[in-house]
């Protein structure tokens, strides 16, 4: 009798627990428009505004400072250049939208240049001093390899130049900066409140040329986050660490100016900012709580933890000058696992909670 009573009590308790869980499980409508607006106002517009300002400074600094290409002048130019690549790193993960038109992304960031095409083209330009490279407008119509931040970097690390070449080199550097500024301005205008792409972004519909359904903007953000975390880890970080397939150290982005680690830190911090400012994790968290979905909730908590760690650690490592040539470079190995975890956990939890179409084929087809 006593045993039966206990069994009955246990069964009742189980049933009550299940009922309570079901009663508590609610559906939360995901406000994709809010996420899109948050990302636009809190991350994308400020990111491109910062990039535009940094490139404007690079242009004006180059025009004002570049006269004799003395060591002191080059130091000033390097500081402006570093600001520009950090501003680019913070927004480089927005790989959709107007940055993809007219090869704008590649005109800013032509990397990885595996065959050294751009390096050869810039070297040839410095030798032949073509007039077309003195103007931002005409430079913008030339090969992508001679237009980007890497071309500017090559000017900074090449030299010393013969006195008769300095005039061309400074004009070419200013043209690069001016052309990049114009590209950034065009992209920023398209994302501005009255810009053409911002209008598409804000109003998914059957007639929208880019986004047909509300969740597609959220999907674009999450996809950019996932793909760029993978690229940061598997390409930009593993190469200078010597963990790529070849098992030998290869240059990372902006290695010639010794800015690879600061650039990677900017990339990571930019991706973290995207997640925070868009509110995508916060919304997913609410859904997970409402659904009594402890697995997703735990994954999302872990993503937050990993991103905090990554941002702080990468910034610390970036303080070491020429990090990847230093003895401390092995410390960057510790970024590998959190980068992977921040990607995989976010992808799984966000796909589940926000019902994003990360299908086996649709997300990774061929």
């Amino acid at each position: 009798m006593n045993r039966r009573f206990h069994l009955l009590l246990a069964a009742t308790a189980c049933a009550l627990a299940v009922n309570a869980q079901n009663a508590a499980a609610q559906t939360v409508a995901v406000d994709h428009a809010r996420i899109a607006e948050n990302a636009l106002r809190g991350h994308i517009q400020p990111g491109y505004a910062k990039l535009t300002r940094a490139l404007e400074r690079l242009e004006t600094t180059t025009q004002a400072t570049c006269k004799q290409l003395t060591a002191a002048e080059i130091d000033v130019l390097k500081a402006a250049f570093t600001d520009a690549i950090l501003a680019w790193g913070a927004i480089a993960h927005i790989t959709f939208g107007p940055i993809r038109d007219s090869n704008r992304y590649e005109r800013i960031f032509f990397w990885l240049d595996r065959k050294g095409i751009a390096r050869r083209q810039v070297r040839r330009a410095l030798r032949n001093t073509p007039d077309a490279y003195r103007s931002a407008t005409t430079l913008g119509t030339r090969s992508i390899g001679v237009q980007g931040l890497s071309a500017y970097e090559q000017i900074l690390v090449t030299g010393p130049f013969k006195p008769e070449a300095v005039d061309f080199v400074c004009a070419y550097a200013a043209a690069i900066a001016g052309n990049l500024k114009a590209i950034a301005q065009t992209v920023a205008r398209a994302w501005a409140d009255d810009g053409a792409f911002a209008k598409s972004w804000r109003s998914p519909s059957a007639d929208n040329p880019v986004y047909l359904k509300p969740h597609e903007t959220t999907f674009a953000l999450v996809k950019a986050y996932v793909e760029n975390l993978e690229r940061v880890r598997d390409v930009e970080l593993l190469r200078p660490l010597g963990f790529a397939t070849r098992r030998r150290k290869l240059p990372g982005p902006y290695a010639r100016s010794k800015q690879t680690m600061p650039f990677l830190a900017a990339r990571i911090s930019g991706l973290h900012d995207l997640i925070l400012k868009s509110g995508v994790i916060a919304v997913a968290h609410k859904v997970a709580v409402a659904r009594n979905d402890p697995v997703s909730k735990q994954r999302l908590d872990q993503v937050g933890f990993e991103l905090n760690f990554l941002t702080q650690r990468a910034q610390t490592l970036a303080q070491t000058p020429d990090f990847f040539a230093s003895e401390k470079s092995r410390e960057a190995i510790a970024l590998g696992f959190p980068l992977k975890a921040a990607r995989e956990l976010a992808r799984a939890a966000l796909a589940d909670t926000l019902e994003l179409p990360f299908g086996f084929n649709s997300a990774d087809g061929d």
Partner: protein
Amino acid sequence: MVIDRRQLLQLGGVALAGHALTLSDRARAGTPSSAVQLFAAARKGRTGYSAAIFDQTGQDHAVVSLPARGHDVAVCQRTKQCVVFARRPGNFAVAFSVARRSAPVSFTTPPDRHFYGHGTFSSDGSLLFATENDFEAARGCIGVYDVKRGFHRVGEFPTHGIGPHDLALLPDGQTLVVANGGVETHPDIGRGRTSLNLATMEPSLVYIDTRTGDVIERHTLPASSRRLSLRHLDIGQRRTVVIGGQVKASSGRTLPLILTHRLGTDLAPVTLPNKLARSLRGYISSVAVSAAGDLAALTSSRGGAVVFVDVASGRYLGTRHVQDVSGVAPAATDGFLLTSGTGALAIHERSGPDGPVATSAWHWDNHAVRVR
């Protein structure tokens, strides 16, 4: 000793030879009944990757395990030999047979090449042609393998483009048509899937004489469509090639994702309704032409849709929606088998009601092919 990825794959390939080719009772009993249609596809399960011969209900008739993700299966309709290829940038392939109980044979590309996931047999079944990446030179090539010599690689010829993907043999038995995707990749960079030449892409459709390796015709896209990577194709009636493309890194501009082509003519884009064209999200996953050769089905996993096109006129006929659909193969009834990453399989009937949708525990991969 450091074992790199390629050595590891080669070791995996050797180990594969010892893997069991499992045949179901139905397959052991002999030729399947006429009601049973057989297909082949690569897939992912809870415990790993495999390729299978299966029927329209999803029942396995033969299974071979794979060391990594597979992509397409080439089937020799004469010998019933099948070869499943590694997904790029993998360098393994596994040959297995439906009709015999022989053990599967694994083979690899040379170390400086990798497969693109597609291949086709010569009309007599003696040779296998596979699209490959000569990644140090950034050029596409067709690897030629001697079937009777255990798939020994006997040569190669260029595809006259970068990133060749799907290919097919024209009914003349001599001409290969190859879709050069135009995208440069390198196995050491970003899992071998990072595009390295978006700014300079030049996709093309190339006809090659398999006897000489000579180019018969080469067709490129206009400058406005250079970001459309030509990927998959099939051949319909009157040697009409139906091609599906994938837009690489564009702001969402609608490019013509489906094209048709006949030797001696220009590439002809298929006009889709605007709303449908946008919903495909710039992505065609797979192409198949019906058994009669007059109807093409093109899947879009990103759009969750199958688009039907009249081969002769290039006219859009209709759409069916299936979540994460990708594999498509002609069915005996002149309809199509559809497979999905969700595990669903369905027969789409050309006329009359669609067959029932079967479910399975597999993530069916990119392609499905009919084993006649």
